């Protein structure tokens, strides 16, 4: 170490006279020592950026997907035109989403949205030029919520609440008889969907109906015929097609990136009391409001068997087959719609279902574990639905092709198959990394989602809540309602029209019957009957 020259900083010394210019130059060079390092860094950074971009573009080019990230422009709705007067039948949880989609909000929800940071996005939602002029609910509390929502001056899209009266109707028949209602939105328990849709279609009122459309074949046929003969615009409540992701997925399917698809796996993975439709207690464990005085129970029951009123039955009706078809009707309908909108699979040739009540052993009819297999021999394809309410491991929604598989939820990812023939060369060349997705789109990346409960998260992960367009979260239900309203104003057929609703209705009824009857159920396409 002794021979090491000693470097000293003694500022005083630096002002020493002897060889002044050489010293100065040396000091300058030392001062700028960082420049070559930064130069090298800049060179490497540029090279890295170029490499990443080229690699991405090469993969996208290879797959013919260059335009997939093109910005989405939403066509403006026909907000001008005539004010559309809407009646809402059933003002529970789902109707709140409908009202929000229409641009109306309950005063209490303004505060809620402020807290979870979703108010701004909602206020930016486009005005659809509609008025909620009628509310019909058998429960006074819900009806009052509906009226308060329809009258609230806080509106999305800077709209003004129209200065026309909002009426409460005691029965849906009264609402349908009113000439001052142009269209109705049905968000009642499922056993009312078909009868109300039929009655509305017969008097020429447009219908937006929540799934499921019908509980048996007869109801489904009635609804189909009534809508077909009426000329009304019918939309079933399957908002998933409105997600940006969905439009990209359509492109992926059209370009045959997955190869021959022989298996589509759809799932439900929930593990909470709320997710299993136990919802009659509030956060403190007390029964939620409502009794026979405030609820018109006979009207709620409709044509179903007469049973005494309980808060359990009123709030947890999904558990009972008298009012719906279990997870098939509540959740699989969305899965079927997603697959049907993409692949146009239609009605299956046969369905086999199996399952049971293995965990939530209460008074339910609904199985908490369920598997349904839908056969499409003409399409060389099977659609699988695997559902559990007692484990929340996310299993996604997967389209399995010979060359790659695609997972689709609130984002899309496509992964090449290890045994792919088409992508073999690219995998070998390192262009396609087979261990992870070769292409993925996540428009919500870096955006905080405001969903809080496990059930909400489930729906969000399946692309059923919001979609991100140009950095803004847009409610897909709003887009779905907008499509319906645009069709009412300008003509055209919405995506979840009566044909799709019929196909879905039949597929679901086949699955439900298979579960009930413990046998393979077939579709007779000639006589259009389930056998």
């Amino acid at each position, binding site marked *: *170490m002794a021979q*090491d*020259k*000693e*470097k*000293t*900083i*003694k*500022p*005083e010394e*630096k002002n020493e006279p002897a060889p002044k210019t050489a010293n100065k130059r040396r*000091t300058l060079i*030392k*001062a*700028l*020592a*960082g*420049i070559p*390092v*930064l130069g090298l*860094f800049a060179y490497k*950074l540029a090279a890295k*950026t170029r490499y*990443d971009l080229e690699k991405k573009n090469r993969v996208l080019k290879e797959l013919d997907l260059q335009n997939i990230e093109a910005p989405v422009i939403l066509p403006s709705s026909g907000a001008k035109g005539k004010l559309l007067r809407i009646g809402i039948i059933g003002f529970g949880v789902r109707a709140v989403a409908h009202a929000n989609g229409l641009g109306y909000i309950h005063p209490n929800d303004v505060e809620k949205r402020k807290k979870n*940071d979703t108010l701004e996005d909602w206020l930016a939602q486009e005005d659809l030029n509609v008025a909620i002029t009628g509310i019909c609910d058998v429960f006074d509390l819900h009806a009052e919520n509906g009226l308060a929502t329809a009258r609230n001056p806080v509106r999305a899209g800077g709209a003004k609440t129209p200065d026309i009266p909002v009426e409460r109707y005691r029965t849906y028949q009264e609402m349908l008889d009113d000439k001052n209602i142009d269209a109705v939105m049905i968000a009642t328990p499922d056993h009312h969907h078909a009868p109300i849709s039929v009655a509305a279609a017969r008097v020429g009122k447009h219908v937006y109906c929540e799934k499921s459309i019908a509980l048996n074949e007869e109801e489904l046929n009635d609804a189909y015929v009534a809508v077909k003969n009426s000329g009304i615009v019918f939309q079933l409540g399957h908002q998933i097609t409105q997600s940006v992701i969905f439009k990209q997925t359509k492109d992926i399917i059209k370009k045959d990136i997955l190869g021959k698809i022989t298996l589509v796996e759809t799932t439900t993975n929930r593990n909470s009391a709320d997710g299993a439709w136990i919802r009659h207690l509030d956060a403190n464990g007390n029964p939620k409001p409502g009794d026979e005085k405030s609820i018109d129970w006979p009207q709620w029951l409709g044509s179903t068997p007469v049973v005494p009123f309980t808060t359990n039955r009123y709030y947890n009706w999904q558990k009972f087959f008298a009012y719906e078809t279990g997870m098939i009707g509540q959740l699989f309908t969305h899965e079927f719609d997603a697959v049907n909108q993409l692949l146009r699979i239609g009605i299956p040739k046969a369905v086999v279902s199996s399952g049971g009540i293995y965990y939530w052993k209460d008074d339910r009819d609904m199985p908490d574990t369920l598997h349904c297999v839908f056969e499409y021999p003409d399409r060389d394809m099977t659609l699988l639905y695997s559902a559990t309410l007692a484990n929340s491991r996310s299993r996604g929604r997967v389209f399995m092709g010979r060359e790659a598989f695609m997972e689709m939820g609130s984002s899309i990812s496509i992964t090449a198959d290890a045994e792919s023939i088409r992508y073999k060369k690219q995998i070998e060349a390192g262009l396609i990394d087979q261990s992870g997705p070769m292409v993925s789109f996540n428009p919500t*990346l*870096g*955006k*905080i989602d405001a969903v809080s409960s496990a059930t909400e998260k489930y729906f969000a992960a399946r692309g059923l809540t919001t979609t991100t367009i140009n950095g803004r979260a847009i409610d897909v239900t709003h887009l779905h309602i907008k499509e319906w309203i645009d069709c009412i104003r300008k003509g055209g057929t919405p995506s979840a029209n009566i044909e799709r609703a019929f196909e879905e209705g039949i597929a679901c009824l086949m699955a439900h019957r298979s579960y009930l009857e413990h046998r393979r159920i077939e579709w007779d396409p000639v006589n259009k009957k389930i056998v």
Partner: protein
Amino acid sequence: MKETKTFTTPQLTTLVVLRFLIGWHLLYEGFSKVLIPNWSSLEVLQESKWILAGFARYILAHDNLLNVVDFLNTWGLIAIGLGLIFGLFTRLASISGALLLLLYYLNNPPFIGLEYLVPTEGNYLVVSKTLIESVALVVLAVFPTSSIFGLDIFIEKYKNLRNNRKE
């Protein structure tokens, strides 16, 4: 009294090289956040454990605050990286870099019992590379080289000039 620091050539060389390397790393960490579309500290904050978990949750609950954190993170890293490479305001850059890295470390420290969804690239028990890099920056702050190799030469000269005038 003026402080006088003396380094041997190997000492000076290794210290300057260490400064360049850490500067390079932090500069690229910053730039990569600029280059990744929609990058956000969201996922890292969601993984936050131990004493800063509450703070992370608070940030996550406020969209605007998250944007501020993202901005400070990205441009803070770039500024620190440039400071270390250029040898400009190096003491400030080293100390802020050390604190920032310590913050990262404390967000997900590899302590027994704290488990993370995102796997690490190595195996750590209490000590991680982030902690080491943080301490290395403290070393650079304690053994400053920027007034020998770096733009701080000029800062120093300016300070001396001003001091001389006062005297």
